[in-house]
């Protein structure tokens, strides 16, 4: 693995192939996803990331089940999300599920937190969309605590309080999964990522690059403000959307019918206009390389690049071919070229091994395989239960 990680991320839409009229079943798409992930590892990509949705035509309702299954069939691939809903999921369940995934995958798990973009998901999960930012702030504060403190006492506005709670399993090697925070245009989320010194991910698809530029700039400056390092040392991830053939003309001819009726941008701007307006690139591998290298011009040196390749009804064989081209023709050049121009002092993309080594060095590791965590937990638990009792007494219970 080089200083940057490259991979694919998926919106998980089930969309009719407009060229054949065929709509894959949920089962076909889900199994196709697994094939995509395995192909990604096979051709040397680093990351597979799933979205999270709770409504048709999407199928990605259960990320850690999916990622755990992929983890069992791969050896090097990092399993991630884009995004995990920090607003409507219980942070306790996120802590448990992703720590479990981290253990099962031997540290190949991280996650990107986001608020989601489907209004009704909030009421379906008993939340209020007007609390979106507040939920993202409060729930992550709890998730962070659960992964950094063996015994948690906690009280907030949006969840039942916790007294003497220990999240299990403890993070692998006492180091929590790396967290990215994703947002298109909410400065509060860039601020949140900066405050914790976590990563910031911009999906960088479907939107004009000005949003990406503004968010990344704010995140970098606040990362430095909170004392985590220089702005250039902040951890940035970007998305991108590509479709490639050996000639630009062939790529456009093949992709255009999918583009023209796609759920997100179909019936709107022309393929050419949308390519101009957003990071979408439809052309040769060389054009994709050139475009992707240009992201650095507005985002700075960054750590993770994920491509969307399975959107808008593209059939599986076509998607696997795209992954193959990425792995064999595009990413090797990107690794080399990005490394060549990378400034000194820019951190490598986060991996579990590197984070464990850093935590050991800094003395912030929670314990070997969670053992010390549990020892700590027993002593802390007594204190916590005392505190709980004190709270109960104060409340007059």
């Amino acid at each position: 693995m080089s200083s940057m990680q490259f991979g694919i991320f998926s919106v998980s839409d089930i969309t009719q192939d407009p060229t054949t009229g065929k709509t894959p079943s949920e089962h076909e798409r889900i199994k196709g996803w697994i094939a995509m992930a395995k192909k990604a590892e096979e051709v040397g990509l680093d990351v597979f990331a799933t979205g999270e949705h709770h409504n048709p035509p999407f199928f990605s309702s259960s990320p850690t089940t999916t990622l755990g299954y992929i983890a069992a069939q791969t050896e090097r691939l990092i399993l991630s999300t884009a995004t995990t809903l920090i607003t409507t999921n219980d942070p306790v369940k996120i802590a448990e599920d992703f720590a479990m995934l981290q253990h099962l995958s031997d540290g190949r798990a991280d996650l990107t937190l986001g608020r989601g973009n489907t209004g009704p998901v909030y009421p379906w999960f008993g939340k209020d969309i007007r609390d979106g930012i507040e939920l993202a702030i409060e729930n992550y504060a709890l998730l962070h605590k659960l992964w950094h403190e063996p015994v948690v006492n906690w009280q907030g506005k949006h969840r039942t309080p916790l007294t003497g709670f220990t999240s299990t399993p403890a993070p692998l090697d006492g180091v929590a999964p790396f967290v990215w925070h994703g947002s298109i245009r909410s400065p509060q989320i860039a601020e949140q990522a900066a405050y914790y010194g976590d990563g910031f991910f911009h999906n960088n698809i479907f939107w004009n690059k000005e949003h990406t530029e503004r968010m990344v700039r704010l995140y970098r400056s606040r990362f430095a403000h909170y004392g985590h390092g220089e702005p250039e040392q902040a951890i940035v991830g970007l998305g991108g959307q590509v479709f490639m053939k050996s000639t630009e003309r062939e790529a456009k001819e093949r992709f255009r019918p999918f583009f023209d009726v796609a759920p997100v941008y179909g019936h709107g701007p022309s393929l050419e206009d949308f390519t101009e307006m957003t990071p979408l690139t439809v052309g040769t591998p060389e054009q994709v390389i050139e475009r992707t290298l240009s992201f650095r011009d507005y985002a700075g040196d960054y750590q993770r690049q994920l491509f969307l390749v399975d959107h808008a009804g593209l059939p599986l064989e076509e998607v696997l071919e795209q992954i193959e081209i990425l792995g064999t023709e595009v990413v090797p050049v990107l690794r080399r070229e990005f490394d060549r121009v990378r400034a000194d002092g820019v951190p490598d993309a986060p991996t579990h091994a590197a984070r464990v080594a850093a935590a050991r060095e800094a003395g912030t590791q929670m314990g070997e395989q969670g053992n010390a965590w549990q020892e700590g937990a027993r002593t802390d638990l007594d204190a916590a239960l005392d505190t709980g009792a004190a709270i109960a007494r104060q409340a007059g219970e």
Partner: protein
Amino acid sequence: MTNPRIVVVSAGLGEPSSTKLLADRLRDATLTALTAHGQHADVVDVTLRPLAQDIASHMLTHNPTDALAAAIKEVIDAEAIIAVTPTFNMSYSGLFKSFFDCVEEGQLASIPTALGATGGTARHSMVMDTAMRPMFAYLKAQVAPTGVFAAAEDWGSASGLDRRIAREGQELADLMVAMPRRREADPFDTEGDAFVSFEQMLGHA
């Protein structure tokens, strides 16, 4: 010091357009009244017809073309707006509404605004109070009390159209002088009032 800028948004579809004609008359009346205040203004025309395709694409993708982005920027950066639409089915035209749908909450707050509408007969004149004013009230613009509706017949009779235009131009000039718009702070400006630090989000500051 640069002059304040008045942006004239007209949603007329014909060429020549009576909607544009009314917008130009409101512009001239405003400039005349400003001169009486000893002030000048620059004027920028934003004609929506050539932006119709761009506006539809924006509605579907949230991505503005360069031309539309420039037009939106003119409007939200202006010191005053004159907005004029034809009346379709008892309301502003869809094009007019769709353009202002590109403007985000708060971006027009406190901006002095003069409204105008055109229509076939005076029976459509309620568009001013049932459609236009509610939308600009939602956008928190400062709207001049007079809103000129020009029916086809007004252009050929002594119906008082000139007087109404002059009064609205005077009102817009008065607003620009006495209650100029306050700029909303940029939430990405970490030194500005609109920026929310993490301590504030946590309720610690």
